[in-house]
């Protein structure tokens, strides 16, 4: 490869192209990082890791509207290899004029799935009637402290509930944007009987039990006849507090999946996949490439006298093209990295101030290596194409 030995490109003109590349790269990164982070936040909404699975209602159109028998949580807890089984009701509601999500839980079971750090006040227990705990981010936003009283208004049902804040917690998960209350509070908001919950999250020891074995247990359980009132066993600890009995169900309507897979199922159903979001982001970038082409063309036009002199001194068009491309590649790599860095910093600053939010939960931004590679490849490719095209046009002129 021949590189022309002297520096005939003016720094000031090259800087313009660099700025354009940085901006285009930042635009792509903000779009892609934003979309992918929203996707990831929704995927991780109910928990991460292979050892957390979800039992859900397959007929439900959203993750929050299904109904699963409450008693199954206790039945699953008795399976060897199940470490915790958390029945949950997740419902949108309104507190202090803001839409939030309230999660009705059996606190001791939830704590085993999501360890919480209590920042202020005390830990919530199932028998803490008319009490709740608030996540750190939400408590900051709504200015809540322990012993404050809040009115929870139904968003999808007619309900009003007064709760006293017992504690403020931090989990470094989506729970930080929610209110945690005893299971029955969620059931009131969902307007369901005490015998049903939205979903059951289960923590398992993979070496002892698999999701398919849990599903088999659910199938067997459905086939077991309901004991007659005279033969009914002693109420479980949960039943001693919440009035529910064994509800019948069709096993085919129940799904057992890894929690992330469960959320992915719903997102896929609406065409929201990681691939489609990346394609959408790439489309945004491609739309911005006309600017890169215009900028590259301007750069070549600005160096028309120098290029003409070099051509008259015997430099071939191919040599010139190659030289310009070689000089532009490090620039485009550096510009794409700078753009990505600017985008990441801007998004992290936004995250610090609690924005943006999707479904009343803050989006957690994380740098993505695939995105970085895609960004660098796209920017470099476009610059190379633009320079080749512009030099060709200059030759024609």
């Amino acid at each position, binding site marked *: 490869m021949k590189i022309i030995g002297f520096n005939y490109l003016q720094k000031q003109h090259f800087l*313009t192209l660099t*700025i*354009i590349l940085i*901006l285009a790269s*930042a*635009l792509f990164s903000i*779009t892609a990082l*934003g979309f992918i982070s929203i996707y990831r936040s929704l995927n991780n909404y109910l928990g991460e890791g292979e050892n957390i699975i979800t039992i859900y209602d397959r007929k439900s159109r959203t993750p929050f509207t299904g109904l699963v028998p409450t008693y199954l949580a206790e039945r699953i807890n008795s399976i060897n290899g199940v470490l915790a089984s958390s029945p949950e009701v997740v419902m*949108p509601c*309104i507190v*202090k*004029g*803001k*839409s939030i999500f309230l999660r009705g839980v059996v606190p001791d079971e939830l704590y085993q799935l999501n360890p919480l750090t209590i920042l202020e006040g005390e830990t919530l227990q199932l*028998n803490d*009637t*008319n009490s709740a705990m608030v996540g750190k981010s939400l408590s900051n936003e709504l200015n809540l402290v322990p012993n*404050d*009283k*809040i*009115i929870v*208004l*139904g*968003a*999808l*049902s*007619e*309900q*009003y*509930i*007064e709760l006293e804040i017992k504690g403020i917690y931090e989990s470094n998960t989506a729970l930080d944007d929610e209110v945690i209350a005893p299971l*029955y509070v969620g059931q*009131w908001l969902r*307007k*369901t*009987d005490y015998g049903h919950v939205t979903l059951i999250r289960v923590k398992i020891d993979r070496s002892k039990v698999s999701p398919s074995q849990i599903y088999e247990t659910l199938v067997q359980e459905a086939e077991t006849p309901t004991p007659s009132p005279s033969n009914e066993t002693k109420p479980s600890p949960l039943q*001693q*507090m*919440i*009035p529910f009995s064994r509800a019948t169900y069709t096993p085919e309507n129940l799904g057992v999946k890894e929690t992330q897979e469960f959320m992915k199922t719903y997102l896929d159903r609406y*065409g929201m996949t990681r691939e489609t979001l990346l394609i959408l982001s790439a489309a*945004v970038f491609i*739309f*911005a490439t*006309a*600017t890169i082409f*215009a*900028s590259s*063309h*301007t750069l070549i*036009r*600005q160096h028309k*006298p120098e290029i003409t002199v070099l051509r008259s001194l015997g430099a071939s068009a191919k040599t010139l093209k190659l030289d310009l491309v070689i000089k532009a590649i490090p620039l485009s790599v550096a510009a794409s990295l700078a753009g990505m860095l600017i*985008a990441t910093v801007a998004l992290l600053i936004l995250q610090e101030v609690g*924005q*943006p*939010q*999707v*479904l*009343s939960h803050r989006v957690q931004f994380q740098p993505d290596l695939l995105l970085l590679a895609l960004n660098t490849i796209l920017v470099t490719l476009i610059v190379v194409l633009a320079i080749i095209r512009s030099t060709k046009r200059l030759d024609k002129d």
Partner: protein
Amino acid sequence: MILPLKALFRKGGTVPAILAIALLVAILASIASVVNHVNSQTENLSKLRGTGETFLLMSNNSTSMTNSKVSTQLIQILNENDDVKYILPQKIFTATMITASNNLTVLVTGVNTITFFQVRHTYVNGSFANGMQANVGEILARIASIHKGDRITITSEDKEVTLEIAGIIQTRAQSDTELIVPMNVINLLNQDNDKVSIIEFAVKSNRNEEISHLSELLPADVKIVATQQTQTLVQDLNNQTLYFLSLWSIPVYIVVVATAYIIATRLTIESSYELTMLKALGAKRTQTFELILIVTIIITSAGTILGISIGLTGAQIISIIIQWAWKGIEVAPFLEIQQTTQIILFASASSLLGCIYPAVKATRKTYAEVQL
């Protein structure tokens, strides 16, 4: 002015420049139109859900029901209204409940028990409280090991009453963790008999009209709170999406500024002959400046309008493909007039900002720098 404009527009860079702006604006227009569709769908779904008919009257400055106080005279105002289905005044406060085995802090609600149990569709194990009796919510009864026929004492503000549990109730609402006591008993504990904590009421029809009419009749220190706030949820969720969209559009407009800069720079390079000729013919610096500004603004305005059309058409075409590929999914992207105006204004302002420097620079050029 027309002749120099014509000369500048004849340059080969005009069409690519319009296209560069158009594609950027198309990104904004298409995404905004799809977001509008999603938001309108959410609003439509919320309308299907219904908005509820139950409301609360509370004191304006209260943050909870227990610290709210409203006059019982308001009951009369509600009573005079034919569209009010039922009225349920409630006195809600925290008290200590003493049972045979427990001392617990509980929420006590004083009500007209007959109305209360009718509107709550209550299941009762026993009977509804009357006289010196109380009903206890089923969950509270289980936690405190209270049974029908038990005697409990409630203490509040140094006063106490002993009551018999007439029945255990289940309402699938907060009453399941409360003690429900007839209002006349509560008045023994709480002397302020002209005030209640909240007044729950329901309307029969014309919800919005009725509520706005009622709010005119109420004193300023009282507020009406809907117990189902679907609309607030939908607006909040839609605003979150729109906020994200506004934040995201900032880098797009920054790229528009940069593009306008490139367009103006390219224009000055490619039109150096014409600009030099104009100067030689006596054109002032301001005239050259205005000329470049006008050309850039015309190019970006044309690009913006074209971009909105491309964006909307593109979104429509993709929607048709989606509808064809995934049966049952209907997407109808649209742009509000104010959004269209906003995009045109912001894109024009960004373009203006981007072309100022190249325009100023072009006016400073001397003959020596220009190749003729």
